C-alpha cells in the first residue's frame, strides 16, 4: 500500500520526477566515477606490482626504481649476498638504458632492459620465445611497428651515442626472437629486453657489473617485512621497497586525484541530496491537505513519514541505477584521458570498476535519499491537524 501511494504521487508529476531522476543519475554517475577513481589506481597499481610475484624492489640508496639514472655497483656480489638471505627465492637484476636500432637510413630508439630472461618480471612473451643466447632480444609491439622488424630478423643495435664523433657506441648484432608485453612501460613506449650481460657490455665500462634495480621474490611462507629488514641490513647500499612502501609512494604522488575524487564525490552526493530534498519539500508543501487528512483519519505519523521517505528513496534508487551505467561510460572516457599520462605504465587504470564501488555509490545515494525525505516529511506530518485543515480549506 505504502509503495503504491508513493508511486502514485511520483507518477502524478511525471516531468519533475523524471527530471529529478535524471539529476540523480548524473550525480550517481559522478559519484561512482569518483569512488572508482579514489580506489582504482591504487588497486590497479598493486595488481601491477604483484603481477609477477616480486614483492620487493631494491633501488640505489635513497631513490625509487628508475626514478633517477643512478645504478647499483658490484651487482654480482649483491646477488650472492641476497641468495644467502633466508626467505629470498628469486632475484631479478635489471639494468635500464636505451637501444638505438639502425633500420636502413633511420634509427629507432627504444627503452632497453637488461634482464636475466629466466628470472625476469618485466615482460610477458606474447609471440616467439624468450632470449636464450646473449645476442637475442625481445621487443614490444610499438617497437616492432616503429622499426618494421619481424621475428627472426637480425638487428644492428647500439647502446650509446658519442656526440663528439657523431657515431654509435656499443654496437652489436642482435636477433629478434620474441614479441613481448612490457608490464611497466607506458603506452606507445618502444621497448626491448635483452640479456643483462649483453646490455652491460654494450654500455661499456660505466655499466660493468651495475644494475638499476633488483626485483626480489620472497618465499610464500616468509614474512616480507622480515625479509626486507634482513636485506637492508645485509646490503646497506640499497633501498629496499616493499609493495606497501611503493603503494605509499604512489599514494603520495597521486594524492591529488584521491583528494579530487573525495571532493567531487562529496559534491555529487550533496547535489543529489539537495535535489531530492527540494523535490520532497515542494511535494510535501503541495500535499499538506492530503497529509493532514490522512493524519485526521487516524493514519500514524510514522506511516505518513515513511510514505514520503519512500518517494525520496525511489527517486534515488532509480536515478542511481541509471547513473551507474552512465558512470561506467564516463569512467571509460575519463580513464582514456588519464591513460595518456607521460611515463605511466599502460596497465594502470585510474578508474577500476569493482562491484564494491557500485554498492558504495548506491548505498550512499540511498542513505542520502532517506535523509532527504525525513525532515520535510516529519515537518509536514507534525503540523497541527485542526489548524492546517482549516488553512487548507480556506486556502
Amino acid at each position, binding site marked *: 500500500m505504502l509503495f503504491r501511494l508513493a508511486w502514485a504521487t511520483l507518477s*502524478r*508529476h*511525471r*516531468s*519533475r520526477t523524471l*527530471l*529529478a531522476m*535524471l*539529476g540523480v543519475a*548524473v*550525480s550517481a*554517475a*559522478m559519484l561512482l566515477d569518483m569512488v572508482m577513481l579514489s580506489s582504482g589506481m591504487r588497486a590497479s597499481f598493486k595488481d601491477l606490482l604483484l603481477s609477477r610475484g616480486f614483492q620487493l624492489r631494491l633501488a640505489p*640508496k*635513497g631513490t625509487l626504481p628508475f626514478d633517477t639514472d643512478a645504478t647499483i655497483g658490484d651487482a654480482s656480489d649483491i646477488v650472492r649476498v641476497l641468495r644467502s638471505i633466508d626467505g629470498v627465492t628469486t632475484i631479478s637484476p635489471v639494468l635500464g638504458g636505451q637501444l638505438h636500432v639502425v633500420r636502413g637510413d633511420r634509427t629507432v630508439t627504444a627503452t632497453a632492459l637488461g634482464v636475466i630472461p629466466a628470472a625476469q618480471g618485466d615482460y610477458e612473451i606474447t609471440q616467439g620465445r624468450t632470449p636464450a643466447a646473449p645476442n637475442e632480444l625481445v621487443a614490444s609491439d610499438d617497437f616492432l611497428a616503429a622499426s618494421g622488424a619481424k621475428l627472426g630478423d637480425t638487428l644492428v643495435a647500439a647502446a650509446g651515442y*658519442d*656526440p*663528439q*664523433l*657523431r657515431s654509435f657506441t656499443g654496437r652489436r648484432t642482435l636477433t629478434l626472437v620474441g614479441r613481448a608485453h612490457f608490464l611497466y612501460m607506458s603506452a606507445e613506449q618502444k621497448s626491448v629486453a635483452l640479456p643483462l650481460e649483453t646490455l652491460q657490455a654494450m654500455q661499456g665500462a660505466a655499466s660493468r657489473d651495475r644494475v638499476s634495480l633488483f626485483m626480489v621474490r620472497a618465499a610464500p611462507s616468509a614474512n616480507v617485512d622480515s625479509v626486507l629488514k634482513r636485506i637492508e641490513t645485509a646490503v*646497506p*647500499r640499497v633501498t629496499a621497497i616493499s609493495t606497501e612502501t611503493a603503494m605509499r609512494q604512489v599514494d*603520495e*604522488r597521486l*594524492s*591529488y586525484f584521491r*583528494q579530487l575524487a573525495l571532493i*567531487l564525490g562529496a559534491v*555529487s552526493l550533496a*547535489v543529489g541530496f*539537495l*535535489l531530492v530534498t*527540494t*523535490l520532497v519539500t*515542494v511535494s510535501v*508543501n*503541495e500535499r499538506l491537505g492530503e497529509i493532514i487528512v490522512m493524519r485526521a483519519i487516524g493514519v500514524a505519523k510514522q506511516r505518513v513519514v515513511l510514505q514520503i521517505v519512500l518517494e525520496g528513496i525511489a527517486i534515488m534508487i532509480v536515478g542511481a541505477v541509471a547513473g551507474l551505467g552512465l558512470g561506467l561510460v*564516463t569512467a571509460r*572516457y*575519463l580513464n582514456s*584521458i*588519464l591513460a*595518456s*599520462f*607521460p611515463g605511466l605504465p599502460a596497465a594502470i587504470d585510474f578508474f577500476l570498476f569493482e562491484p564494491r564501488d557500485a554498492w558504495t555509490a548506491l548505498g550512499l545515494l540511498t542513505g542520502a535519499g532517506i535523509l532527504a525525505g525525513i525532515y520535510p516529511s516529519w515537518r509536514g506530518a507534525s503540523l497541527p491537524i485542526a489548524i492546517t485543515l482549516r488553512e487548507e480549506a480556506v486556502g
Partner: protein
Amino acid sequence: MHLVLLAAAVLQTIDSISPHRPPRTVAIDERLAADAHIAVGDRIVLTRAPGGAGDTVIVSGLVARRADPSEVARAEYRVRMHLDELQALTDYGDRVDRFAIATRGGAAATDSAMRQINAAAFGFQAYRSRDIAVETSRTFLVVSRFHRAIGVITIVASAIFLLCIMLLKVDERRRDVAALRLLGISAGSIVRSVMIEAALVAVVGSGVGVAIGWLTSLFINWHYRSVYRTPLAFSVVTPGIVLLAVSLSLALGLVAGFVAAQRLVRMPALRLLTGRTA
C-alpha cells in the same frame, strides 16, 4: 750552517702540507633545510654515495622552490653547487648535461643561434626553451583535459539541477499563475515575469556560487601548496571563468524558466487551480 738546515727543514715541511682550501659554498632547497634542520652558515658534508668520502661545504643560501608545474610531484631535495665542484665530486670530468643560452635580438637571433649550434661539429642539439616546456608540460595537458571533462559533466549536472529547481519553483506558483490568467494577464506577460524571476535566481545563485568558488579556491591553494610545498597556484578564479559561470547560469536559468512557464500557460487556468499538473 744549522740555521740554513733548519730553514730548509721548515720549508720542506710547509711544502709537504697540502694547500689549505677554504670550504666551498652551496645553496640548498628550503625544504631540505626545514626537514634536516640546516641553517645558513652550517657546514655539511656532500658525498657521492651514502657513507662515502665527501667534501665539507658551507650552506650560503636557501633556494625557494619555483612555481613550476613540472616539479610539483617531485619530492626530491636539490642542492645548488659550483659546477667544478659537482664535476669533481661525481667524477664527471669536464662534462655538462646541458647549456642554457640567452640570445639578444629576438626570435631571428635565436633561430640563427640554433642553426649555428646545430651545424657546429660538436654533436650538440639546440632546442628552444619553449619546445622543452611544451614537452615537460604534457602531464599538465592531460590533467587539463581531465579537468575539462569533469567540468562538462558538472555543467550537465548543474543544468539538470537548475531546470528541476525552476520547474518546481514555477510549479509551486501555479495558483498565482491561474489567478493572473483569470484576471486577463496575457500568457506572454506571465512567461516574461517567470523568466525575469528565473534570471534573478540564476544571477543571485551565480553570485553566491562565485563567492563559494573563490573561497574554495583559496582553500585549495592553501591546502595543495602545503601538501606539495610549492608556491604554485592550483586554482585561479579569473574574470573569464566568472563571466562564463554567470553567463552559463543565466542562459540555463532563462531556458529553464521559459520551459517551466510555457508548461503552465498552456494549461487551462481552472486546471491549474485544481493543482493537477504533469
